[in-house]
């Protein structure tokens, strides 16, 4: 396996955490109730912390003198390798929660598999992060049930969010040369192998929430190759403003 494949893979994981973490942080001060404001800020912090570890490891693999901050703040949209679902705008609260739930279920499966990785650095990060991901999944899963099996209004919104986000779930299980190289080297699981566990979690929560699982159909793709929606560029303009306007700024 080449160092290039490991770098690419770490960017996929790290960028997904970073981009979703920033999105969730946009709720800070705007959530429907105080407890939820605090919860979302905590989830955002955990994801940003995971991004810091993963991108730090990516920078070491790359060996070109960059660090996690340089990767986070000084790359443009086409260099990002996050799942497209992570950059979707927040929409309403139901949209944010459904996006989080679909992602958390994937992250729990992925990190659980990575704890057995032959790559000790990656296994160490996953062992730490899987506990956080499980905690996030419990929070988002409980909300999906509450919204789906709630009022007519909350149910309509949760179903609309699920229908809109579903085409972004296919990317989680995509295989390509990078994922094949990592699987062959026992560094990462075959992405397709995560699908049964993810489906079990999703089916059980959607069932409890009395929401209708969308039909399998056409899936969005492109995040792993740097083909993003315009939403990412706008998000990065906000996220990267300070270190770009004031290079080397510290506090």
């Amino acid at each position, binding site marked *: 396996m080449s160092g290039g494949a490991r770098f690419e893979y770490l960017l996929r994981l790290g960028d997904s955490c970073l981009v979703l973490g920033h999105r969730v942080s946009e709720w800070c001060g705007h959530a429907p109730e105080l407890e939820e404001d605090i919860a979302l800020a905590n989830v955002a*912090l955990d994801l940003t912390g995971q991004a*810091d570890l993963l991108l730090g490891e990516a920078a070491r693999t790359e060996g070109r003198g960059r660090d996690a901050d340089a990767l986070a703040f000084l790359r443009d949209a086409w260099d990002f390798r996050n799942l497209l679902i992570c950059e979707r705008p927040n929409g309403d609260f139901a949209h944010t929660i459904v996006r989080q739930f679909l992602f958390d279920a994937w992250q729990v499966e992925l990190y659980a598999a990575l704890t057995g990785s032959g790559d000790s650095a990656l296994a*160490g990060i996953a*062992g730490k992060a899987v506990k956080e991901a*499980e905690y996030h999944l419990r929070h988002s899963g409980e909300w999906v049930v509450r919204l789906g099996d709630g009022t007519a209004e909350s149910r309509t919104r949760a179903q609309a969010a699920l229908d809109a986000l579903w085409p972004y779930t296919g990317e989680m299980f995509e295989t390509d040369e990078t994922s094949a190289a990592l699987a062959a080297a026992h560094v990462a699981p075959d992405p397709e192998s995560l699908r049964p566990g993810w489906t079990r979690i999703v089916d059980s929560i959607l069932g409890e929430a009395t929401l209708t699982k969308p039909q399998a159909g056409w899936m969005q793709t492109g995040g792993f190759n740097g083909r993003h929606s315009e939403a990412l560029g706008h998000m990065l303009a906000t996220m990267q403003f300070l270190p770009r306007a004031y290079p080397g700024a510290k506090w």
Partner: protein
Amino acid sequence: MVAPEAHGNRIAQAWSVLNGVMDPEVPVLSVVDLGVVRGVHEDSGELRIDLTPTYTGCPATAAIQLDVENAIEAAGLGRPTIRIVTSPAWTTDWMSADARRRLQEYGIAPPEQPAPQGRRALFAPAPALACPRCGSMRTRRTSEFGSTACKALYACEACAEPFEHFKCI
């Protein structure tokens, strides 16, 4: 050349200094009580301290690191190097019985022991907790997340006081 006794002494001194470095968010617990200090080593005359973060995104991690460096230096043991270790992952199981008792006295319900593992922990009902003020079991969780990454919010229906629970991971 440092004599072996002196060598051992310096490490023991460092541990006793670390016992006095308190967590900035939970000031009744030291960084040793919390299980954040994973080791103290001496390499060519320099102390190296291994720390592990509680949560990956815990904003107190940097503050803890700085407090440790300053305390060791102030004790005349020299500026230590800090190494951040993530494996094995931090768990509340590393918290001593005495630390749990002090947490309880401070008004924070301590984590259950042992921490629930893996999928069994998912979607399990919230653990039944005794109110740290009045001891009643008539308590309920009001939020999975609290003022810091390591805490959840509860309320006691007997004494009507809210309290925090040190989350169990």
